[in-house]
């Protein structure tokens, strides 16, 4: 019985690593350089209009996309490997994504925040339904459902902090780092839903069909992290 030949074909495309723009990318720079991954300079400084960049490894290309889209690119196999926040993974919960490594960077939290004036003795008023402004509809619905509350979602992509003051929603669920934006807009963090850090993620089918290449990349990131600890 003969099956397909196991020799790797030479025409295989390079692996694609999806990186998020912005905050996480900055924190990721030292990790990438310790892992010996040098993307084209245009990728990291953000000036370039290009979206796909070569690296010093001819078998690896980098694409730079929005943080939420990293998970989608990896889930559908457009990129085999990526870096994204655990908040994005919680929101989409794609079954095709594995998260084998916690990079420990970009630490922040997904939290509920309310207008300072609404917080009575540290307790929010009880209700069976609540209107929430957020860019995390799935996380928000799940969180309030476990408390027996229906969350009516006002889906925004930014400036969530305006929603309570303009009466779009009574609370918000958002990513909180220092909390200064909340304070500047008269809000207070009342509940932490989850602490999040950035994860190295891989596409399930890619890991099954190219285990050596992807395993080696994961190991490079892992040893880069251990250098930091040491």
């Amino acid at each position, binding site marked *: 019985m003969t*099956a397909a030949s196991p020799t790797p074909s030479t025409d*295989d495309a390079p692996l694609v690593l999806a990186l998020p723009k912005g905050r996480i990318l900055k924190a990721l720079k030292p990790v990438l350089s310790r892992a010996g991954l040098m993307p084209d300079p245009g990728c990291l400084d953000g000036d370039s209009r290009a979206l796909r960049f070569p690296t010093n490894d001819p078998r690896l290309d980098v694409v730079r996309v929005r943080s939420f889209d990293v998970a989608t690119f990896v889930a559908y196999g457009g990129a085999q490997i990526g870096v994204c926040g655990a908040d994005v993974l919680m929101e989409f919960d794609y079954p095709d994504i594995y*998260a084998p490594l916690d990079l420990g960077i970009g630490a922040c939290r997904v939290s509920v925040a309310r207008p300072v004036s609404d917080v009575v003795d540290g307790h929010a008023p009880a209700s069976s339904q609540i209107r929430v402004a957020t860019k995390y509809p799935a996380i928000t619905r799940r969180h309030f459902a476990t408390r027996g509350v229906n969350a009516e979602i006002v889906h925004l992509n930014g400036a969530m902090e305006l929603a309570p003051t303009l009466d779009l929603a009574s609370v918000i669920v958002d990513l909180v780092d220092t909390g200064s934006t909340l304070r500047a807009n008269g809000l207070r963090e009342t509940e932490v839903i989850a602490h999040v850090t950035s994860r190295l993620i891989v596409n399930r089918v890619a890991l099954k069909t190219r285990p050596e290449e992807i395993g080696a990349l994961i190991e490079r990131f892992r040893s880069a992290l251990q250098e930091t600890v040491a």
Partner: protein
Amino acid sequence: MSPFEDPNVGLLPSGFIDLLQHEAEAEARGIETVMEVFGAHGYERVRPPLCEFEASLLLGSGEALTEQTFRLMDPDSRRMMALRPDMTTQIARIAATRLADRPRPLRLSYTGTCVVLGTPGREGERQITQAGIELIGVDSALADAEVVLIAAEALSRLEIAHVSFDLSCPALAQAVIDAAGLPSAGRAQLAHAVDRKDAAAVAALGGHMAPVLTALLDAAGPAATALRALGTIDLPSEARRHAERLTAVAHAIADAAPDLRVTVDPVEFRGWQYHTGVCMTVFARGVREELGRGGRYLAHASEPACGLTLRPEALLRAARPIALRKRVYVPHGLSAARAQALRAEGFATVAGFAPVADPASEARRLDCLYVASHNDLTRL
């Protein structure tokens, strides 16, 4: 769609598609090729119905099957019927009822259409075709290996390149998760984290089993290295028993087909949740979807069984395009015997119903590559 427009009649419910000439032909031929290999290995073909009473279709199967099943009421018996989302449970039913007296091991093959509800947001395919085998009444590593080897032969017959089989054992992962001794909510969270290979969450939720689970996560990979790693992990006794079986199956496959690419993932537990032993998922390098899956389960009355189902839709996308029959325009008035002879040579004959002035342009209009005459064939 705007509320002011009538829906287009070409619109189908999401996840249901028309296969057109070329694709439908390729699918049918692919299925026949696969079924031919199954039959040659002594797997006799059966054909259960599309629809059954819910109570018997879902008997003894897991939650996942219930969650994927379309249901309708039978106006005749007033009982709930279900469209099958999977055929394995039907084959198990046939083996336990109509074929209960047949000698074991019983080897059956099947192909047919199934309907699943799909995953929210990803209802890409709701009508799926299955072509598979079930080996019922025997519990051994060689039996597990047999279904893998036969599937590999079928895929190689379809000339699908760089096929790989991922071996896993859901019961092994479940045994380790159980050994963590968590309350049900915590157990479900841990199982989810293991399923997503979320190393950080496994470390946080795994309790005293976290180091074992982390080691298992890291063990996944090509069979030789994965089994070596698996051998060094200190597993609870039940999990160790599953690990030994997994190893035995991988060795049996390697002995029979040393060139077949096999990976091992001890913590994978995807798919229908009825599997109790070694499971396998079929992949091909460069193809972004599973080509099939299978595994060991308990059929009715705890009879041991193992099966594997290929997905012809995925095979169709992975395999090289087929060559269709060449179409020959047969002008009106040509003898039936001449057309018959062309068909015997493997051409598809397209008959003209009336004489035409220019047979060549008529042939082109009808997608024909040739025009036939009494003793000649003109290529256009």
